[in-house]
């Protein structure tokens, strides 16, 4: 049987950050092709800080233009840039003290040859054609490679700056999750029975967290695909970034016959809310085998993937509350 491919997922936070009077002025100046420092007890700090780094006093917005030239304080040649670096060909990160400033700024230096880089070497600011009011609007080059370019100033102040955090992860499916996913594709719920307590977990995490015992394939058990509603909620969709739902629907926890742990996160759209209740007996109606997918099942989330067409009432009498109250979650 072919193995499951590693689970790939992307974690993204599309941050927009307010900038305030100090960082805002700094980023606005970058957009306009200027580098600013801030006065602090007789020194000039670049990038500008909002407070005195030694006393903690709030700094007045007393800015001074620094650069465009600067001196390298330290540098490192990046032979294999990461995808998040400012350049995708080899470049240098450096600590640069802009002319007129008393502190250094960490930034990228684009150089055709690392031989040009040394402590004390001269560099100059260069501004990208597309500027957003962000630290990435500029970079540095060795003085000898610097080009004079007119930077048209923008309009207004930069009060918000965007920072997209986007991280990729790849993780193999754990063996017990593979067996669980394979079971779903075959139209079966596979849980695990704890060798210590005898309780049946579904879906299992591969261990019994109460007795602190790992479980293995020999602890796998097939659990019935009919059971009892032990808890439910009616979800009214709230609009947020990434929201796909528009209509209210039921999300229920179902205690399948033979399991001690409710199967949560089951979306129910084919049973009217008015008649829905805890204690109700339901059974899974599976999708046709060719239509089942477990693509969303990873090592922690994904519920039962996309293998169940719908849950439908069995018509059996409800289970009384006393029989399900320990599983009311």
């Amino acid at each position, binding site marked *: 049987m072919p193995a499951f491919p590693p689970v790939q*997922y992307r*974690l993204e936070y599309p*941050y927009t*950050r307010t*900038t305030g009077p100090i*960082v805002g002025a700094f*980023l606005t100046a970058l957009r306009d092709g200027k580098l600013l420092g801030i006065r602090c007890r007789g020194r000039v*700090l*670049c*990038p500008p*800080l909002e407070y005195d*780094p030694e006393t903690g006093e709030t700094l007045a917005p007393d800015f001074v233009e620094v650069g465009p030239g600067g001196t390298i*304080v*330290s*540098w*490192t*040649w*990046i*032979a*294999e840039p*990461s*995808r*998040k*670096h*400012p350049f995708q060909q080899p470049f240098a*990160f*450096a*600590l640069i*003290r802009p002319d007129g400033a008393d*502190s*250094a*700024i*960490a*930034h*990228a230096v684009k150089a055709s040859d*690392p031989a040009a880089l040394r*402590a004390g070497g001269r560099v100059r600011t260069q501004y990208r054609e597309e500027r957003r009011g*962000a*630290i*990435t609007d500029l970079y540095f080059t060795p003085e000898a490679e610097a080009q004079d370019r007119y930077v048209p100033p923008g309009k207004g102040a930069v009060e918000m*700056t965007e*920072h997209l*955090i986007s*991280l*990729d*992860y*790849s*993780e*193999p499916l*754990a*063996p017990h999750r593979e067996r669980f996913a394979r079971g779903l594709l075959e139209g079966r719920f596979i849980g695990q029975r704890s060798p210590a307590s005898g309780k049946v977990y579904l879906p299992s*995490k*591969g*261990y019994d*967290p*109460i007795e*602190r015992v*790992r479980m293995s394939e020999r602890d796998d058990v097939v659990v019935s695909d009919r059971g009892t509603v032990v808890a439910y909620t009616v979800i009214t969709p709230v609009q947020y970034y990434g929201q796909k739902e528009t209509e209210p629907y039921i999300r229920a926890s179902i205690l399948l016959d033979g399991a001690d742990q409710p199967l949560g996160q089951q979306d129910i759209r084919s049973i009217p809310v008015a008649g829905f209740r805890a204690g109700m007996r339901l059974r899974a109606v599976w999708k046709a085998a060719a239509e089942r997918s477990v693509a969303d099942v990873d*090592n*922690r989330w994904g519920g039962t993937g996309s293998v169940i067409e719908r849950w439908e009432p069995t018509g059996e009498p409800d289970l009384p509350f006393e029989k399900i109250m320990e599983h009311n979650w």
Partner: protein
Amino acid sequence: MSTSPRPSPGDDIAIVAVAQTPARRRYADSEPSMLMDLTNQLLAETGLERSAVDFTIAGSCDYLSGMPFAFVSNVDGFGAWPPVYESHVEMDGAWALFEAWVRLAVGDIDVALVAGSGKSSPGNPREIFPLQTDPYTAAPLGLDPVSVAGLQARALLDAGLATERDFAEVVSRSRRDALANPNAQVKKDVAVDALLAEPYYASPLRKHDLPPISDGAAAVLIARGARARELTEKPVWIRGIDHRIDSHHLGLRDLTDSPSARLAAQGVDLHAGPIDVAELCVRYSPEEIVLRRALGLAPGTCVNPSGGPLCGHPVMATGLVRVIEVAQRIREGRARRGVAHAASGPALQQNLLCVLEGEA
């Protein structure tokens, strides 16, 4: 029930049991499973029931696995029943130890379980770590710890405080020492000249000047006063912990030095006695040179006999592993007093020191 004297506030606090997984490039196990194994090991060694653990604290970082609330799932590893009185720090387990030590010092509880864990294998650490830097001026540049370590290395060379050969010697010695460490991930006997022949990666650093990417976990049990003596014949007493932080603005720092490490050393009275062993969080070989100077370690000091993080770097457990390596040597009678160091942030921005001592 024991009839020995009850602990009281002001008692010393000791490590009574330690456990760590080997550092590996990739563990198939889930992080909770790894913590479960360590918890079971600690309880078995001390004979403690899980219900006798008064306080549990873990250090971990959800960004490593990319799973929101991964740190909540980890609590499964410590045993979900009875409910844990727990805490968490988004830091290395060494900081969890600091909090546990402070918590026990309050005097109302006696036993704490401390853990640190992390799986770096699913993600790309070089892309994740910039997120701990300034969100306006550094993170959008993807300014990562490897690049910052390169800046620090260059500063040391230019200041005449180190040579590339010095960096290579740290690596060669560490990897050779790691041959004796069953928990080390990278261990080999490689000569300094062979290392110097390798190409630069983030100049002047070469790939071997960097830590490996590791999955791993570590845990300790600590206890107060009389309780510690009930749980082990060889308590390792925590004599002091101190933690200091330098500016997060790289351009305001002198990267050839570590003022926060120096301050922390004063805070723990590091030189109040001999230092038989020092386990330092040397993730990048130049860091050993900076730390030896900042901590004022005498030239012959035994540093990183485990091989240190250059040989295994389970992020979020690495610092706690340093504590464990010192504690183990004290328990085995190979040292009487030692110091464990943990670091966080770019170029040794944050430094924590923990001084440990065995019985007289």
